[in-house]
């Protein structure tokens, strides 16, 4: 599909400057009265047969082999998210739309934006035919084989959105063999395997939309890029982390001419597209006067700084420092240090709830917000000055990364927001590649605690290992440069040492419960339980913070 599209827009765009980019074909996308019409246009372009013919044997191999493997994971552990999504199937199927965001039959209330609710509604129709019990509202914690197969299957099938986007990325890439490695590595990403195919979510599908949006940006079709991103935001609002970069990029590179003048036609078409998407999504709830209710579901500001398991970000390091300082204060009985008594009991066990520091001054949501915005502004300024696709990718990654690093109540799964766009940059040069390696390995490792069951432990470790070798080895073969001066040699060795440390960490995490079995049974069990988690979090945080600094410096120094 969209081969015509590309010819008419992308190729001239490469030759010329921004201002000369043809706008002609773009209104085609927003011409329609609503997004359904425009998607009908889209569908016309999609010739399924030619698309299938276009898939290379290599791509079939990846798709089939990974699908077979994912089938084997059907009986694997699944988190409560599985029941969350089943409940949403039931809500959207058995209740009228006005009740969707009000229902509290299950504790897992609907808290994704409306597009996702529509999506669940769509999925609930075949579900009803396969097993009516799936969509029964009161049938809580239903876990028959039928619902497992159905829900797991929908994850695999909707992930084709990701597959097609990645496949399109290879076509028309500057360096197709390189892009092929990156595409394959993204499709097979252990993050998706762990979070989607075992833990259970639909990230593959939604990152597929993100990648379609990025693909459009790469092909010079910025309007479509903005459209897709607006759609994505209405599927899952966590992608707001990335919104600032989109805003700046589209404003600067699409709505303004290089000299800084506003191009009204473009601005209006983009605004219309976005407004249309939001109207289609929120419109019904706006009419029913449910917007406040909907928003209160989407943004529950009642959580603590850290999640139960500290997401390995800046705050994990701060929290860990606080713990260490507390110990120091205890050992040396420093009176001058002000110890917050309530903080002593808090967080050491990693319970859900507000994190209260014992030594370090407490953090409020507004602090995290200010820090995040401040960092993002730095990167966005750079993006404003160099509004190219690559610069956009880097700024996008950094936007997500900043939110992950300093955000309030960040979940470890959010690391995918960083790893996915970063992967697209991994083959740029050695610096990006190194950053990618460190971030990916620590990021993927930080997802391991999501699967705490023994049966899945070999799966997550083995799969990630295979993936890492298959991704990093060929990339490194292409872009690795030997460090030329002493400081770089030292840095290189330190980074290698850090990566090797994961083996030791895993050995510790595996053996620790076995060694402390006897103590754990008697007393202080939970403290022992939490130590491996804390170590994992802190160790991964070191790598992720370092990769963040690395990426920031690389981006800001880039000309």
């Amino acid at each position, binding site marked *: 599909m969209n081969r015509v599209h590309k010819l008419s827009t992308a190729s001239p765009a490469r030759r010329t400057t921004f201002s000369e980019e043809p706008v002609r074909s773009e209104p085609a996308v927003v011409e329609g009265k609503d997004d359904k019409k425009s998607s009908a246009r889209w569908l016309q372009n999609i010739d399924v047969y030619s698309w299938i013919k276009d898939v*290379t*044997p*290599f*791509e079939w*191999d*990846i798709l*089939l*082999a990974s699908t*077979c*493997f994912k*089938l*084997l*994971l*059907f*009986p*694997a552990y699944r988190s409560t998210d599985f029941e969350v999504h089943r409940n949403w199937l039931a809500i959207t199927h058995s209740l009228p739309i006005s009740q969707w965001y009000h229902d509290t039959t299950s504790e897992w209330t609907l808290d994704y934006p409306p597009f996702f609710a529509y999506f669940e509604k769509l999925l609930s129709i075949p579900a009803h035919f396969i097993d009516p019990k799936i969509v029964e509202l009161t049938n809580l914690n239903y876990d028959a084989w039928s619902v497992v*197969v159905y829900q797991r299957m929908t994850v695999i099938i909707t992930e084709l959105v990701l597959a097609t986007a990645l496949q399109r990325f290879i076509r028309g890439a500057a360096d*197709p*063999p*390189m892009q*092929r*490695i990156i595409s*394959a590595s993204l499709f097979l990403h252990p993050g998706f395997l762990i979070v989607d195919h075992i833990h259970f979510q639909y990230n593959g599908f939604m990152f597929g939309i993100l990648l379609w949006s990025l693909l459009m940006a790469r092909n010079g079709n910025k309007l479509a890029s903005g459209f897709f991103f607006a759609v994505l935001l209405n599927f899952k609002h966590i992608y707001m982390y990335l919104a600032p970069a989109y805003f700046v990029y589209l404003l600067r590179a699409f709505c303004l001419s290089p000299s800084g003048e506003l191009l009204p036609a473009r601005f209006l078409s983009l605004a219309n597209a976005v407004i249309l998407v939001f109207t289609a999504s929120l419109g019904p709830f706006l009419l029913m006067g449910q917007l406040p209710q909907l928003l209160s579901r989407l943004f529950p500001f009642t959580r603590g700084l850290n999640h139960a398991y500290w997401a390995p970000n800046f705050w994990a390091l701060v929290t860990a420092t606080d713990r260490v300082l507390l110990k120091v204060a205890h050992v040396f009985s420093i009176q001058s240090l002000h110890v917050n008594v309530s903080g002593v009991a808090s967080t050491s066990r990693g319970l859900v709830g507000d994190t209260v520091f014992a030594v370090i001054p407490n953090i409020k949501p507004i602090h995290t917000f200010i820090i995040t915005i401040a960092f993002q502004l730095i990167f966005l300024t750079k993006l404003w000055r160099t509004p190219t696709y690559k610069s956009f990718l880097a700024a996008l990654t950094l936007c997500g990364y900043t939110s992950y690093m300093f955000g309030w109540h960040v979940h470890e799964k959010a690391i995918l927001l960083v790893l996915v766009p970063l992967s697209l940059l991994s083959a740029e040069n050695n610096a990006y590649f190194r950053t990618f390696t460190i971030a990916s390995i620590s990021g993927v490792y930080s997802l391991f605690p999501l699967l705490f*069951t*023994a*049966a*899945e432990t*070999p*799966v997550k470790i*083995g*799969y990630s*290992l*295979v993936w890492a*070798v*298959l991704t990093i*080895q*060929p990339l*490194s*073969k292409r872009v690795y440069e030997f460090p030329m001066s002493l400081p770089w040699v030292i840095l290189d060795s330190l980074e290698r040492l850090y990566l090797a440390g994961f083996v030791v960490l895993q050995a510790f995490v595996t053996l620790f419960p076995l060694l402390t079995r006897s103590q754990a049974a008697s007393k202080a069990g939970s403290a022992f339980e939490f130590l491996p988690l804390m170590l994992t979090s802190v160790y991964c945080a070191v790598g992720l913070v370092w990769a963040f600094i690395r990426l920031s410096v690389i981006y800001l120094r880039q000309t």
Partner: protein
Amino acid sequence: MYKQGLRHHVIPLIILSSALIKWCIGLGSYSGRGTAPMFGDYEAQRHWMELTIHLPTNKWYTYDLQYWGLDYPPLTAYVSWLCGIMGSWIDSSWLALDASRGIETQGSKNFMRSTVLLWDALTYTPAVLYFVKIWLRNRSPKTQHVATMVLLLQPALLLVDFGHFQYNSVMLGFTLLAMSFFAAGRDLWGAVFFVLSLGFKQMALYYAPAIGSYLIAKCLSLGPHNGPKLFIRLGLVTTASFAVIFLPFLPPLSPFPAILQPIHRIFPFQRGLFEDKVANFWCASNVVLKWRIWMQQDTLIKLSALFTVAGFLPGIGGMIYSGYKLRATYPAPVLPLLPYALLTSSMSFFLFSFQVHEKTILVPLLPLTLLLSGAASSSFTFQLGALVNNVALFSMWPLLQRDGLALQYIAAMLLWNRLIGYNPFKLRQKSLMEYFSVTILSLCTMLHVLEIMVPPSPRLPDIYPVLNVLLSTPVFGITWLWSIKRSIEVSWGLGVLGLHTKPQEAIQSEAGSIISVEDDRSLVGGNSSGVGLVHSASRSLSLRTRSLGYGAEKRPSLRSGSFSGET
């Protein structure tokens, strides 16, 4: 892969991936899950761990025989004992005597699954690596890697061992090691490993005529001086190995009748001609010929023995005759016959012998997959090997379905066929064999679809298993006949049968291009040289390896290349 600096990572990656897949198959259900009071093979294996760690050896073969009494040879018992020791160190409740019967906790399941993976990693995996190193030593690294993958991911074995739950890979691994030791010229080690295989599971007996005749042929070929010497040594080593395995049941350690306990348990002639539905001669012909009504059990036993012997006689006869004709030549000139003889012998046991289980198809499947692993994708061997592997899996469908492994069945089958690049449904010029494969596989698919769409009528509750048997048996029968035909051809190629060929040269070239495992079209023509065929084999292999990402492409426009891309 080769261009991306992954060359040295290929074998470890294959091993790791195959272990991963095996473990993931194990995430699913197993035989007899939740079916009290008897459960299934899973419980049997677990029960043996339980009884071996809690009881003295003289009770092993006599304790509560009604509840999964031990009926495998002692090596299985020792392995169970070792696993049991480890398991009860982790959690003794998993293996408490009697109290743990039918235990189905997640922890005990993980433990049981990990023991299969462990023993597989200790026996079958190294055996495959060694086999590839020895038997395919003159082949390209690509061929070797493909062969490793073909053998490590063989779906029938994966599903029975890691899904249904058994330890067949240990028995098969020992036999495979024995074969490789024979090929390496270390016959005594080979004999030891074959005894280990027999000592682990009596099904290895299906191979015994082939192995025995190979060793006799080898002795014959060594001539009047060295031959008897090797023969005596082999005899001593074999007896000693058996003695070691059965040591706790032999006179100094226990009274004489003790040895009869395991023997009785291992060879259950008191059971029926076949169990359930199995795709062999007896069960298939039972549709029309009611053997069990017409004849006494004794007669049936004799008849099945006669048929079995008649079935493997061509294989071992050919082998011994070749050995005699090729005497005084070195290295072991009859070696190329060994895989075919193993196939003939094991397949005839499967088709004709007494008390065969559907899972036993794994035994003839091993030599066939070995032949397949080195064959070119256009060759008859490859086509037949791949077909039989699929049909064998299909023949176990009723069993796997009962175990709740339908999903794993589909996934493992698709994965393996994709990896080896087998797709007879592809539109292209087809050989007769491919038409045959397409027909059989379409029928299998249709049967699956029918089974979903139309429930069996009450009058014919077993209609689907019976149709399954009727469909699978002819394929196995053809494989058996083919193996005999190939034995004759290979003997011919070795210069045994041809009048005008010079045995010496034939042997030289055969030994040079070791070994037998190719598709020898040239041999069919009476030409004994193996050179031409190595050529053709490697040419078409590159096609087959396409799907594995090894680079060489037929369609240059749609380069696939490796995981990691291409220049």
